[in-house]
Every structure is written in C-alpha cells, then in structure tokens.
C-alpha cells in the first residue's frame, strides 16, 4: 500500500515496576499501519499483546518510545475487550449509544445511529434487552456496535472472541470481516489463535515471549471474502506453519 500510515509505533518499550528491576512487557516494538488495514497481533500469553493495545488506546503510558497517529491529533478509539464489558443497568441500545452520549450528541440522532448498528450486527428485536438477558455472542456484538458507533479512526480488539464457544466464534469472524468491509475501519486485534488471525487479518504481527518484540510481520495474501474452505488449502497451511514456528 502506498497511502501514508495512520499509525506509526517507534521503539516502544514498557516496563512495569516490580521488586526485581521491573517487569519488561514490551521491548523496542516498531511498526506502521496503513488506513483500513486489518492487523492481528499474535503471541503467546505474557507476550505483552494486551499491554501494546492498552498503550495504543491511551490507557497506559509507554516507558519509552513513541506512538504517532498520522495527522498528529489523538485518534478516536473504539475498543472491544475480552469480556463484552457492558453496563448492566443499560439496555443493549443504551449501551451502544454510550460513546455518542459522551460526545454530547442529541439523544434522537444518537438513537437513530444506534438502530443502524443494531441492524449491522444483527440484533434486531433485542434493543431494549438488558445485558443479563443476552448470550455471550450477542453481548459481544453489542460491544462491537458500541465500538463502532462514534465512527472511530481506530478499532482496537483485545481477544474479543476468546470467551465464546467455537461455533459462535467462527460465526463472529464472518460477521466481523463483513462489518470491517462495510465500515472501512483500521483494526488492530490481539489474539492467540493462528486460525483467527489468518481468517481476518491483512497482516499478522507475531510477538515473542516477554519481553515482547516483533518476531515476524506476515502479510496474509488469502483473497477475500475468506470462506470456511480456505483453511484446507495448502497456502493456508503454509502461512499457519510460519506463524506457528514464529510463536515457537
């Protein structure tokens, strides 16, 4: 791609203070991301994947290094967490409207946009359900809609499907790539599933065991839309093998 990067990460390191000299979570991580790219960050547990995401979201200050967003200003961020992380006192649609409320948008306009997203994630009829009445997959779809509603520059996903069963998870992959193509978002998704990253990503960054550094930057050239059958092709097997070896 020839477009200017939307996000440049330079020499990023993160050290958490502990009793013996600090816990190094990330070390000299650098990469660039172009607009509308779908990036998966893959790595063993404890490789600092979530730390990286939290730094990008502005929830954590890096110990050293720089995160630079293309146009210089703070980007608008949509984040999806490992758990759906909904407010239990709000209905599905009220949860989705939260980011617009924080922006101070007019209630009716916000509701209108939330309705469109309810359609996009396929939750028609559940607008006024409370989170306790939603299944895990439905709750996670509410969370995705909430992350999209304020039209963020960057979508950060932290193992969003980790808590779902295998069947629901694969359905969510299809949903997510459909939403991603409809919405043209830049996405960074943390995962520990090779299959998931090959199903979704344009590029996969593999982090090493702690302290995490980038071991492999792999372009996934499987054509879209990616179907279930692609995982039985030899090309998929080759890519999976490369990733597997990089993770170690």
């Amino acid at each position, binding site marked *: 791609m020839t477009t200017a990067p939307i996000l440049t990460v330079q020499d990023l390191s993160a050290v958490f203070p502990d009793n013996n000299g600090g816990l190094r979570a990330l070390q000299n991580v650098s990469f660039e991301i172009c607009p509308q790219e779908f990036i998966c960050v893959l790595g063993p547990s404890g490789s600092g994947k979530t730390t990286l995401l*939290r730094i990008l979201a502005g*929830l954590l200050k890096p110990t050293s290094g720089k995160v630079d967003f293309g146009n210089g200003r703070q980007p608008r961020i949509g984040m999806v967490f490992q758990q759906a*992380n909904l*407010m*239990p*006192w709000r209905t599905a649609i009220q949860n989705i409207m*939260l*980011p617009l409320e*924080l922006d101070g948008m007019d209630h009716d306009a916000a509701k209108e946009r939330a309705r469109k997203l309810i359609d996009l994630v396929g939750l028609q009829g559940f607008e006024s359900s409370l989170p306790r009445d939603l299944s895990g997959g439905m709750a996670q779809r509410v969370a995705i809609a909430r992350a999209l509603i304020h039209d963020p520059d960057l979508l950060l996903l932290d193992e969003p499907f980790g808590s779902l069963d295998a069947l629901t998870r694969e359905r969510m992959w299809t949903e997510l790539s459909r939403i991603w193509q409809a919405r043209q978002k830049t996405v960074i998704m943390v995962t520990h599933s090779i299959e998931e990253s090959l199903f979704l990503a344009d590029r996969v960054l593999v982090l090493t065991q702690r302290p995490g550094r980038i071991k492999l930057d792999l372009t996934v050239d499987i054509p879209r839309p990616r179907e279930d059958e692609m995982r039985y092709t030899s090309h998929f097997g080759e890519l999976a093998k490369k990733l597997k070896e990089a993770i170690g």
Partner: protein
Amino acid sequence: MADALRNIHRNRRWLGLISLLMGLFLWWLVSQTANLPSFILPSPMEVWSRFLVALADGSLFLNTGVTLFEILCGLFAGAGLATVIGYLVAKSRALERVLAPYLVASQAVPLVAIAPLLVIWFGPGMFSKILICALIVFFPVLVNTVVGVRAVPPALNDLMHSLRATRGQILLKLEIPAALPIFLSGLRIGATLSVIGAVVGELVGSDRGLGFLINIGRGQYDTALVFVAIFMLIILALVLYGIVAWIESRVLSWQEWRSQ
C-alpha cells in the same frame, strides 16, 4: 392440608397482617388475664383511647412532627456528608489512612455514651438531636459508599477512558449507577438507625419529641402514652425504610435477582 398450605402460600401478602393481629390479640389476652395494673401493661384499648386523646389535644402531632423533622434533617445531613466523604475516601488511600482512626473510634464509642455530651454542648433543642441522628447515620452510609465506589468494575473504567470521558462523565455515567445498589442498602440501614438516633437524643434531654413523650409518660405512670409513642416510632421507621426500599426497587429494576 396441602391445599390449605398452598392457599397460605398464595396469600402470603396477608400473612404479615394476620401475624400482627395475632400479636395484638395475645397482648389483649395477657392484659386481661395476668391481672396487671394498667401502668405496668395497659390493654390495647387503653392505648388506643390514649392515642385518640393525644391526637385530639395536638401533643401527638407536635411531638411526632418534631421527631420526624430531626430524623429527616439528621438523615440528609449525615447521609449527604457520608456520601461526599465516602467518595473521596474511596478515591484516595491517603485520605482513608488519615480518617480511619477517627471513623473506627466513632464506631467503637456507643452513641448512647456521647449523646449526653452533645446535649450538654449543644443544648436540649433540636440541633443536638439532629447531630446525634446524623452521627449514627453517617457510618453505614460512608462504608457502603466506599465499598460501592470501589466495586466499580475496572474494565468499565478502561472503557470510559478509552472513550476519553471526562471526570464528570465517569462520575455520572459509571460510578454513580455502579455504586448505587450498595449505597442504597447502606441508606436503608441508615434510615432505620436515624430513628434510634433521634430518640436517644430526646431521651437524654429535650422538651419536645416522641422521646420526650416517653419520658413524660414514664414519669407520670402514663404507660399507655409510652406505648403510643413507641408505636409512632415504629411507624416512622417502617415508613422511612419503605421509602428507601421503594426507591431501590425503582432505581435498581435492572438487578432482577434482588427480588428473587
């Protein structure tokens, strides 16, 4: 038999009323058969007619009003202050360290023991009663505010920060609704305690209020009047408890498990 049981179960909203009536009947029975003078145990009818007399001469209305006023002022002042300080304590471990010895000490000293002191300092008027009331309400509301605010899920805090929410927005849209269930159960305890606080203050020294009526009744062997005042206190406590419980059920309807 099984049918009867099922019927009782179905009509359990009446059970409370039935149990009350049975209690009244038992009281009446004892007062009739035990042959006690009425200044030891007046019968329900004597208490009722004393109630009508007190109602007619205005003394019941005045004294209940005074006690209710003290309770409400104390409850609002105590709960209000406890909410603000509780929120600050929840947010700052340093403040918690500074205040902890005083808070624990204030709970270790029985209120009955400091009530005379407060009456000496602030006089027998309503102010000392409001103060005692506020003191007794303060602690449960404070503790539940601290626990409630600390129970806000950190992941939801992350969410708010990732959306660049301001401090005010976090307070309004996250912390208050998340802390509300625990806060309100503290307020429910506080509402009942506030009645105790007001009466303790009045018993120590006052010239008005239901506690004052109890003192008068005791001094004049007007035991029926003592009973009237006690029943008024029970009613006040029940009404206050009921109001908070009603607010809880309205505000926390999303927590269905509460009613199960």
